[in-house]
C-alpha cells in the first residue's frame, strides 16, 4: 500500500506533508490536474490524520455524501488516494524544511534530502496543552487534550480516568463527551468561561442528555492532586471558588496549528493564526511552499479542510503550469483589535487577476455585536454589521476589500456601541 523508499533518482513534483483530509485532498486534486509525481509524507504509523482517532459519526457528508465515523472516513480517503496512484509514505518525518522546497526526510531507511518543485504543508492543528494555557496547580497525571483522549480510547481501547471534568464547549468538547460515553467514562461536569456554550445548538443539549452539568461563566482556577488529578477548583458567576472532585481533566479546543516546521524553519509565521503567513493561494513567504487546511488557521471541520486541500491542489497545479500570478504588489491584512483573533490570508496579491481564496477568514475572541470596519492610513474603506460568537466563521469577500483599497495595508477593527 505504501511505497517504502523515497526514490531520490525520481524527480518529485509535489511533496505534501501530512496525510489528513486536506493533504490527501490536495494530492487527489493534483493527480486530477495531471501532476503525476506526488508524494505524501506522514510521520504517524498510519495515514488519515486526526479523524482516524475520532470514533463517532461526524464525517464524510461533503466528501462522500454519507455520515461516517472518523476511522471509516479516513480509510475511504486513503483508499481513494491509493487508487489514484498517490504514494503515501507513512512513518516518514520531515525533520527540516529548507529554502526552495528542499526537505530533509527521516524514515526507517535513514535520512535523505528531496527537492520537490513544490511543497504543500498540511500538518493540521492540535489542542493547546495545559502548560501553554498557564493553568495553575499541581503537575499531576490525568490532564489530557481531547485528541490524546480519543487516540487512547479509539485506537488503543484504554482509558486514563473515569470521572473527569471537561473544560470548554467548542464543538470538539462534545466529541469528547461522546468519546467518554463510548469508554464508560462519566464526566462530573463541563465548564465554560463564557455565558453560553461555544458550539451551536443542538450540541449544547448533549451534556444534559448525558446527565452532565454544564457550568457556564465558570473558570478553571487550579488543578489539585498528589500524583494524579484529585480535584479542580473552579469559580462561577457567584465568584466563590469551589472544589469539584474528579480524577482527570479534559482540556478541549483552543486549537493551534501544528506549525513546528515552519516556525523553526525559514517561513514567516503569523502569531495570530499560529500558522504560516500565506497569500490568497495559500502560498507562503517562500513561494516553493504552500499551506492548506487547518494549518492555515484554527479551526475548521474535516470537511472544510478537505475542500481547502482540494483547492490548494488545483492552485499548485496551476503554479507548476506557470498559470499562477507571481508574487507581486501585495496588500497586508492586519488585525487591530483584541476582539478579533486573526485574519487569513495575511497577504493579498494585487495582480489585477482573480483567483485563489474568495474570502478572508476571521474569528472573534469574544462575543461581538457592532460594526466591522476596514481602514487604511487614509481612513475607513469598508464596513459591515457583525454579530459573532467565538469560533464561529466570519468571512469577508476579498473582492469587496480589494476594490476599495489602493494602499499596501488594510486593518480591521470592531466598532461597538458602549454597553
Amino acid at each position, binding site marked *: 500500500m505504501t511505497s517504502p523508499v523515497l526514490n531520490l533518482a525520481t524527480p518529485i513534483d509535489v511533496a505534501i506533508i501530512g496525510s489528513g483530509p486536506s493533504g490527501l485532498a490536495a494530492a487527489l486534486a493534483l493527480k486530477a490536474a495531471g501532476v503525476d509525481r506526488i508524494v505524501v509524507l506522514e*510521520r*504517524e*504509523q498510519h495515514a488519515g490524520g486526526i479523524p482516524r*482517532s475520532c470514533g463517532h459519526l461526524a464525517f464524510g457528508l461533503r466528501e462522500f455524501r454519507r455520515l461516517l465515523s472518523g476511522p471509516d472516513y479516513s480509510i475511504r480517503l486513503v483508499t481513494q488516494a491509493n487508487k489514484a496512484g498517490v504514494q503515501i509514505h507513512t*512513518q516518514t*518525518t520531515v*525533520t527540516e524544511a529548507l529554502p526552495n522546497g528542499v526537505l530533509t526526510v*527521516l524514515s*526507517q531507511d*535513514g*535520512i535523505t534530502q528531496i527537492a520537490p518543485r513544490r511543497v504543500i504543508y498540511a500538518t493540521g492543528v*492540535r*489542542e493547546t*496543552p*495545559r*502548560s*501553554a494555557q*498557564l*493553568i*495553575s*496547580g*499541581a*503537575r499531576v*497525571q490525568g490532564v*489530557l*487534550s481531547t*485528541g*490524546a483522549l480519543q*487516540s*487512547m*480510547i479509539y*485506537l*488503543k*481501547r*484504554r*482509558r*486514563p480516568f473515569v470521572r473527569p471534568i471537561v473544560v470548554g464547549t467548542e464543538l470538539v468538547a462534545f466529541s469528547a463527551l461522546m468519546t467518554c460515553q*463510548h*469508554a*464508560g467514562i462519566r464526566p462530573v461536569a463541563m465548564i465554560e468561561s463564557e455565558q453560553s456554550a461555544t458550539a451551536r445548538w443542538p450540541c449544547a443539549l448533549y451534556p444534559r442528555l448525558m446527565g452532565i452539568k454544564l457550568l457556564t461563566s465558570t473558570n478553571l482556577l*487550579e488543578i489539585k492532586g*498528589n*500524583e*494524579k488529578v484529585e480535584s479542580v477548583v473552579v469559580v462561577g458567576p457567584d465568584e466563590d471558588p469551589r472544589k469539584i472532585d474528579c480524577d482527570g481533566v479534559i482540556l478541549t479546543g483552543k486549537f*493551534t496549528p*501544528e506549525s*513546528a516546521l515552519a*516556525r*523553526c524553519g525559514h517561513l514567516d*509565521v503569523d*502569531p495570530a493564526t*499560529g500558522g504560516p503567513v500565506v497569500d490568497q493561494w495559500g502560498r507562503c513567504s517562500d513561494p516553493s511552499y504552500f499551506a492548506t487546511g487547518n494549518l492555515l488557521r484554527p479551526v475548521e471541520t474535516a470537511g472544510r479542510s478537505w475542500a481547502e486541500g482540494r483547492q490548494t491542489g488545483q492552485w499548485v497545479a496551476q503554479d507548476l503550469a506557470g498559470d499562477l500570478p507571481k508574487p507581486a504588489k501585495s496588500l497586508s491584512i492586519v488585525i487591530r483589535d483584541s476582539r478579533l483573533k486573526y485574519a487569513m490570508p495575511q497577504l493579498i496579491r494585487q495582480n489585477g487577476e482573480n483567483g485563489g481564496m474568495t474570502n478572508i477568514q476571521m474569528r472573534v475572541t469574544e462575543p461581538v455585536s457592532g460594526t466591522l470596519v476596514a481602514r487604511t492610513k487614509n481612513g475607513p474603506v469598508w464596513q459591515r454589521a457583525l454579530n459573532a460568537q467565538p469560533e464561529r466563521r466570519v468571512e469577508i469577500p476579498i473582492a469587496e476589500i480589494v476594490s476599495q483599497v489602493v494602499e499596501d495595508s488594510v486593518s480591521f477593527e470592531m466598532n461597538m456601541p458602549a454597553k
Partner: protein
Amino acid sequence: MSGAQPKSQQGAQNTLSNELFDVLVIGAGVVGCAMARRFTLEGAKVAIVEKASDILDGASKANSAILHTGFDAPVGSLELECIREGYREYEEIRDDLGLVQEKSGALVVAWTANELEKLEGIVTRAHQNGVTDVHFKDQDSLRQAEPNLSERALGAVKVPRESIIDPWSAPYVYLSQALENGAQVFLSCAVTGGTFDGQEWQLETGNGSLRARTIVNCAGLYGDLVDEAVLGKAEFKIAPRKGQFVVFDKAANGLVNSVILPVPTEETKGIVLFRTVFGNLVVGPTAEDQQSRTDVTTDSQTLKDLIGDAVAKIPGLSEMPVTAVYAGLRPASERKEYRVETLPERNWITVGGIRSTGLSASLGIARHVYILYESFGHKHQQLTAPEKPQANMLAQSGKRDWRRTGYGEIVCHCEMVTRREIEAALSGVLGARSIGGLKRQTRATMGRCQGFYCSARLAELTDGKFDLPMSEEFGHD
C-alpha cells in the same frame, strides 16, 4: 541484576540484602548519584537507597541545567570549592561518559544605572574565585553579542565558561557507572530509622533493612528528616524554596546565545534566561520560600509575570508560544552555606543544604566527602579500569537515537523520541517506573504538544511498567 525494586508487600522486617556494604548512600538525587559513583570508583562496596520509584525525583528533577564556574559563589566557601572541583571533573569525564556541555557562556546584564555600578564588583569577586576569564562588556559589545536583547541593557559581565548541560542524563550516568562497577541500588525504600553498634549500621527502610559500615546522607529535601529519624536530631533545618520556570517554543532558542543572568541581590540570584541543550529557551526561577517539601505547583499569575520579565529583556519573545512550565524545589537550609556534617565516631556524614548549585557541584561534593571519609581512617583500593557506560544523548546538537538506524519508530514527534529509547528507558535496574522518570530519560511528551500526539502510544508502551499507570483497558460497551 540484583537488588532492584523490591516489592512493596515485603514487610519492614525483611532484609534487603545480606551484604555488609562499606558505604550506604541515602538519596538518589544528583548529589547521591555522584556520591555513589565516587565511592565505587575509590573501591568501596556501595549501596544507594531512594524512597521514590525513580531516581532524581526530588530537588534534582527540576533545575536550571547550568554548569556553573563558581564566579559568583561566596569567596572561600565550601560551595565554591565544590563547584570548581565539580566543573573540573565534569570536563574531565565528559567525553568518556558521553556527557553534553555547551559552553554558551553567561552574561550578567545590568538593566539600571545602579546595577551597572555593581558589575565591577562582580568581576572582582569572579577573579578572587579564580575564574579569571570573567570580564566587563560595554553596551556596544553586549549588543553585538546579543542583538535581540532589549535596548535597556546597559552593559554586562561576561562569564565565558558557564555551560549548559543535560541535568538528567548526567546524574543517570553517574549512578549507572557506580552500578556497572558493583554498586547496588534500592528504589522505593524510604529510610525510617537505624541503629549503629559501634562497628556497623543497620538502616531500616519501608521495604527492609540494609547493613553498612558508613552512611552518607544525601537526602536533599529530606536531609534533616533522615538525620532526625536515624540520629535523633539534625544540625540543620531544610527550608524548601520553590522556583517556577516557563519553557518557550524551540523557535525562541536562537534569540540568545548566552545565559542571561541578572545582577544578584542579597536575597536571590534572580531570574535567568537560558537556552537548554534540548533546544528550548527557559525563563526562571522564582524564589518562593515554603514549608512543603513536595509542593511544586505552578501559578498562573507567577508564570505570566515570568513571561513579562522575559519579554522585557528579549522583546522577540512576545510572540513565542509557551511549550512547558515547571517548578522545582531548592533544598536550602536556614543558612546560606552547604551543611556537611560529620560524626566520625558513628561513621556518619550528612550532606545538606545543597541549595541551588547541586548539579554543578555534585562531583566536587562527592570528592570532598570521600576525603572526609578517608579522614575517618577508611581506605580502599581504587578501581584501575572502571566500566564507562555512555549517557543518554538527548541534546539537539548531539547524535540522537533517531539518527541511527533501527530506531523502531518515532513515538514522540516533538522531541523525536524513538521506540528504542523508550524501551531502553523502561528496562534495567534504573528503568522508569513513572511518567516523570520516563521523561527524564527520554524527553517523551516534553515538547510543544505535551502529549497530544503520543500519549496513547506511550500508554500502550508503558503498560504494566508504571506504579501509577497512564491508562487502563476497558471492555466493549
